[in-house]
């Protein structure tokens, strides 16, 4: 997609082993600025682990990762966050006992730049960033609620708000619509588009194919820790291995008809 031709993120032969299991097994890929990259693949294919490695949650067992000209392979998660990479989590992580607002304040205060000393009060930048992020996802009215009590959708939105509050250049979304209904999926989809419009580079994992394929400019399918497919969204359902290992006949059929309809329109 648009932007420049130097990739924002480059992964070279990245792997992550757990004992004898290679959860991520020599993944190489590049993400261009402004791109939306979709990742799919069977359960346990290593998608989340790949995210974990890139964002510094776990250390890679091998390979190199470069972001924006820096080698971030050995950086910790906090440093990577400060560098401009944010993410959301599959299992809806939150600071359960803090309010919605405090959840976002943490991200805004600590996620933008490295601070040796947290400071005695919230900076003005933080306050505006919190305000903006909450408005961005539409949680403004629930700012005083305790995160633990939020329903699924709001927890997902809260994570997105937190990610946005760190002022990221690149964002990783892990199953942002799992467990949501059609309407809610559309809501998230609109948010992703808004992020894209702000020039944020996006990588997302999703099993809900309609969502994944309609947003992504490029799709990767992983299996057993490796990339088994890379291409345009409309090619996914055509790939024999992908259908066999991941989509199944039914879903593949529905997708094909979806894309052919789209072609006709």
């Amino acid at each position, binding site marked *: 997609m648009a932007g420049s031709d130097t990739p924002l993120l480059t992964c070279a032969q990245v792997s992550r082993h757990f004992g004898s299991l290679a959860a991520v097994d020599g993944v190489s890929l590049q993400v261009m600025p402004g791109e939306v990259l979709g990742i799919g693949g069977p359960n346990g294919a290593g998608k*989340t682990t790949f995210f974990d490695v890139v964002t510094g*949650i776990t250390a890679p067992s091998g390979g190199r990762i470069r972001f924006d000209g820096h080698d971030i392979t050995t950086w910790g998660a906090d440093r990577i966050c400060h560098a401009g990479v944010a993410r959301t*989590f*599959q*299992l809806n*992580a939150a600071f359960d006992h803090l309010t919605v607002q405090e959840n976002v304040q943490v991200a805004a205060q600590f996620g933008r730049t490295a601070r040796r000393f947290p400071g005695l009060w919230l900076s003005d930048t933080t306050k505006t960033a919190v305000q903006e992020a909450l408005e961005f996802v539409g949680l403004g009215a629930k700012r005083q609620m305790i995160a633990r009590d939020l329903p699924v959708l709001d927890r997902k939105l809260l994570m997105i708000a937190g990610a946005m509050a760190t002022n990221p250049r690149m964002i990783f979304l892990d199953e942002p619509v799992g467990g949501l209904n059609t309407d809610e999926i559309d809501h998230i989809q609109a948010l992703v588009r808004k992020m894209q419009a702000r020039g944020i580079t996006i990588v997302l994992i999703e099993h809900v194919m309609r969502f994944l394929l309609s947003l992504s400019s490029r799709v990767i399918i992983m299996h057993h820790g490796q990339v088994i497919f890379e291409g345009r969204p409309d090619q996914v359902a055509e790939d024999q291995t992908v259908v066999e290992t991941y989509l199944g006949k039914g879903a593949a059929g529905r997708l094909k008809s979806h894309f052919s309809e789209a072609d006709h329109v």
Partner: protein
Amino acid sequence: MDILIAIITTGLTNGALYALATIGLSLVWGSMGMLNMAHGALLALGGYAVFSVATTLGLPVWLAVLAAAGAGALAGVILYICVVRSLIRTAGKNFETSVMIATVGISISLQNALLQVYGGQPLKQPFGVSGAFRIGDSVVPWLNVVIILVSVVVMLGLALLISRTRMGRAIRATAQNREAALLMGVAVERTYLQVLALSGAVAGICGVLVSSVTQLSPTLGADPMLKAFIMCVVAGLGNLPGAVAAAFGLAMIEAGVQFGMGARWGFPVLLMLVIAILIWRPNGLFGRAQIRRM
């Protein structure tokens, strides 16, 4: 040689006592997330139960030991009914600290109740084995052998119970996820009750063994309880075999250090070892890092 035997005898005896105290504590901790601070007081209770039954009622000593186990179990049941049951329901995420402090309270009361009833002067524990046998020049008292044997038997029994039986599985499941255990049909409350009763019984027996060496005083459980806490954690929480191994291993080292460097250094060196172990292995010697995926 002589010295080696002295060290081994002390190490094994202390190890057996530590281990027995440890499994009682670890059982409850591992399965309920409850640090039972009254465990030491239950030890004392067991010791005094034997005294009362054997001396006052004049029953034979082996029966008195059963009485100690019974008294411990009963105390466990009462502890469950009066304190733990309601805290599990109401304390939520505060459970661990709340129950710890509540049992501190119980422990203070129980210890001082023993003081009021039996007085503060140390009493002779009627359970005892006299005599000794010789290995070369050195002498090993039979009492130490009995202590080691009894605690090994009790530990083996408990280990089998936990690892091999349905009850054991229920205990482990309850420990890891209460709601899930309920859904699987585990009678969680009964499991808790069983665990506390079991641990109380073990504490009772342990108290008898401990007091056969230290004699009876209301505070006799304090030291074993402290050691048990250390062993329990350093082994990795809830890991029973690990705790037993740690108990024996550390007791041996302690005895060795006491001889080699002087008695003054025994416990401090043991603690420094514990510190080093924890820094090196943050989840204890045999513990597994808890994985928290997000």
